[in-house]
């Protein structure tokens, strides 16, 4: 399969994909109800789409192409409301969170679709451990070269996005100590990590052809990179975010990414270089493990500061772009988060501390997702 051509898309347009958990309302364990939910959703008119995912207790929703944060939030709300209504009819709950806190992966069933069954054959238990839930954000790029430059510029901020979105502290019933344990599962895949440092589409094509010749990959889908180009849409796709607990947070993160993209494109605050990736895995680990309190090593200066500090500095630089993009609300939400809880992982831990029952934590996650919390 060839790489195909890079589709046209309007610069800085937005698209959001969210993978969601489907849980039973009896014990709040994952419930294999994707098929039933999809059947009910088929009768609904919604923007974007709802599609099956790897195992039958997850579901993915995506918005259409949006221009700004407000549109993303409006579309997410419409899809969310339709989904929650359908879920109510089936007596199941829906929630965000990068992992289900106590599900037993050996109990998961792979959704019956050829691609999923193939992946399951290949990856074995990894594919069931892959019962993790992420948010993907697409940013429209005017051309493939610009897309690659943006991709490498955005890489500096991957730790920001991990720390802000982290919502997976628990796995298999235990506190992992991580803010985003979900990403540990992603890193287990052979083709995860970062894209090679090439800044033109021709070089990227050459890389892709070499990879396909080895037989290791067939299509872009086989790369589980943190950010990858999506030629069919003409976008780059940021894939490190845990699914947040609320649509408001999901929309705010999309808005933050859009502002970053505009800043990088218009002001070019730094020149991307291969050496930027030297502290990359260190920074990423810090963000996964410690969230906003993690150490961030500035790739250009080698300075150490906390992620919280680096985010606050970045937010300052984004103000003007937020105004241009009508994303002030998004930036305000992020600012408040950084000042308060920090991220959803902290909320989940605090709730567990209070309730001492992970089933109850998931129930409250469902309330937050449905927008029914106080």
């Amino acid at each position, binding site marked *: 399969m060839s790489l195909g051509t890079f589709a046209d898309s309007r610069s800085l347009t937005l698209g959001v994909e969210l993978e969601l958990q489907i849980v*039973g*309302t*009896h*014990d*709040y*364990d994952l*419930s*294999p*109800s994707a098929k*039933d939910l999809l*059947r*009910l959703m088929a009768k609904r008119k919604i923007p974007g789409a709802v599609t099956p995912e790897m195992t039958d207790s997850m579901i993915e929703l995506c918005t259409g192409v949006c221009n700004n944060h407000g549109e993303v939030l409006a579309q997410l709300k419409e899809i969310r409301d339709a989904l929650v209504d359908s879920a*109510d*009819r*089936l*007596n199941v709950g829906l929630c965000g969170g990068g992992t289900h806190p*106590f599900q037993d992966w050996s*109990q998961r*069933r792979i959704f019956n679709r050829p691609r999923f069954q193939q992946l399951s054959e290949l990856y074995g238990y990894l594919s069931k451990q892959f019962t993790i839930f992420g948010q993907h954000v697409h940013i429209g790029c005017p051309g493939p070269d610009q897309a690659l430059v943006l991709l490498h510029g955005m890489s500096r901020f991957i730790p920001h996005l991990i720390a802000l979105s982290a919502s997976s502290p628990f796995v298999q*019933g235990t506190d992992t100590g991580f803010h985003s344990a979900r990403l540990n599962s992603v890193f287990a895949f052979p083709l995860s990590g970062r894209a090679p440092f090439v800044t033109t589409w021709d070089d990227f094509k050459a890389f892709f052809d070499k990879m396909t010749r080895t037989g290791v990959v067939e299509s872009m889908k086989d790369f589980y990179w943190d950010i990858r180009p999506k030629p069919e849409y003409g976008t780059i796709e940021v894939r490190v975010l845990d699914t947040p607990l609320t649509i408001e947070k999901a929309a705010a993160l999309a808005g933050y990414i859009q502002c970053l993209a505009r800043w990088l494109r218009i002001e070019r605050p730094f020149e991307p270089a291969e050496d930027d990736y030297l502290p990359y895995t260190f920074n990423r680990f810090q963000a996964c493990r410690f969230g906003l309190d993690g150490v961030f090593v500035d790739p250009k200066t080698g300075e150490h500061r906390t992620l919280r500090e680096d985010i606050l500095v970045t937010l300052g630089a984004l103000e003007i772009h937020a105004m241009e993009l009508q994303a002030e609300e998004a930036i305000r939400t992020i600012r408040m988060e950084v000042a308060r809880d920090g991220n959803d992982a902290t909320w989940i831990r605090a709730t567990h501390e209070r*309730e*001492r*029952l992970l*089933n*109850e934590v998931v*129930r409250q996650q469902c309330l937050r997702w449905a927008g029914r919390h106080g």
Partner: protein
Amino acid sequence: MLAEMAGYLQIDPWPPAPDLLFWGALMLVGGGLLGEAVFRRLGLPRIVGYSAAGMAVALAGQGLDAGRLAGGVRLVVDLALALLLFELGSRVNLRWLRANPALLWTSAAESLASFVAIFVALRWLGQPVNVALTLATMLVAASAAVVGRVASELRSAGQVTERMIVLTALNTLYAVLLHKLVTGWLHLDEAGNWIQGITQPVYTFVGSVALAIALAKLVAWVARRLELRDENSVLLLLGLVVLALTTAQLFNLSTLLVPLMAGVMLRNTTERPWVWPRHFGTAGGVLVLMLFVIVGAAWSVEAVMLGAGAAALVLAARAAAKALAVVGLARWSGIETRQGLALALALTPISGTALVLLADLHRSHPDFALGIAPIVLSAIAFMELLGPIAVQWGLRLAGETQPRHRPAAAPAPGGTV
């Protein structure tokens, strides 16, 4: 010679006269072994083996006498059913019925159609109205014991499993209420005592609800303070259910309604999810095993000779009625026809509930009970083995059991967690 030696060894009496405990233990071992064999070799639910052990006892002529439940046996049946009903009730989310009214209609249609089908079939066979009416109330409900047990054993999850549980809880509720009304009417019919005919069902209902509320409140109170997954607190929970049950017996309330409604109330008056080990741990597991052996032993050859024909017709009519109602409303309620069929299949079992209603009838209307016993016992005998298998088929048809479920690697029993 032997007797002398026995005397010398102070074995008294001689020959040995094993008591109830001995038979009970033997039943436990036999049922347990047969259950395991059936599960591993044939891939069937273990309760098929438990029931088969009971049926063998009955075949040897040692079964229950016309479905009467005497002393200790009645206690075991009541306790085990109470646990299963409480578990089942605690999974009924009434909010679901509001969000999906088609499900409530399915419940009403399924129960009403079964009731009418059984009544009409019996009338067609020439049974008098009071017999047909009483039998219809006793056989309308699906077996909470079989449904609850098979679902947890197969670790099934999904729409059919959830709906099977809710519909069973609801039709058990209707059946018990209707049964009380009809037995009240029997008073009216036989003794002409209309005050008793009305006040008794009302007393049973109101009293049972009051006791159920008390139980639900106590359980919620305990659960807020203790960790329910802990073995000790589960014993406390078990104790509460048993206490409520014995209280129900003392005041002649319904031993079926109290635990079922307590479960429903617990689920619907508190937000916090309820998780405890399946059947309240090992103690409950033992009771459940014994329940199925006892119900399996309920039939007798004479009863089946008398009632088999009528029971077969009634069961066929009942199954058809349930299928018609459930499949007919499947799409409207949000499931596929195939799932509807699976659900109808899963609602066919008859077991402990019917036996307890018969035993109650033996106490209140002995002669009348004796007359209808053959049909009830035949129906139980038929469905005792077929019921669990039907539930298993249904859940498999719906694709809700674990794929490649290998008994050798079966996870540790218990635990919704």
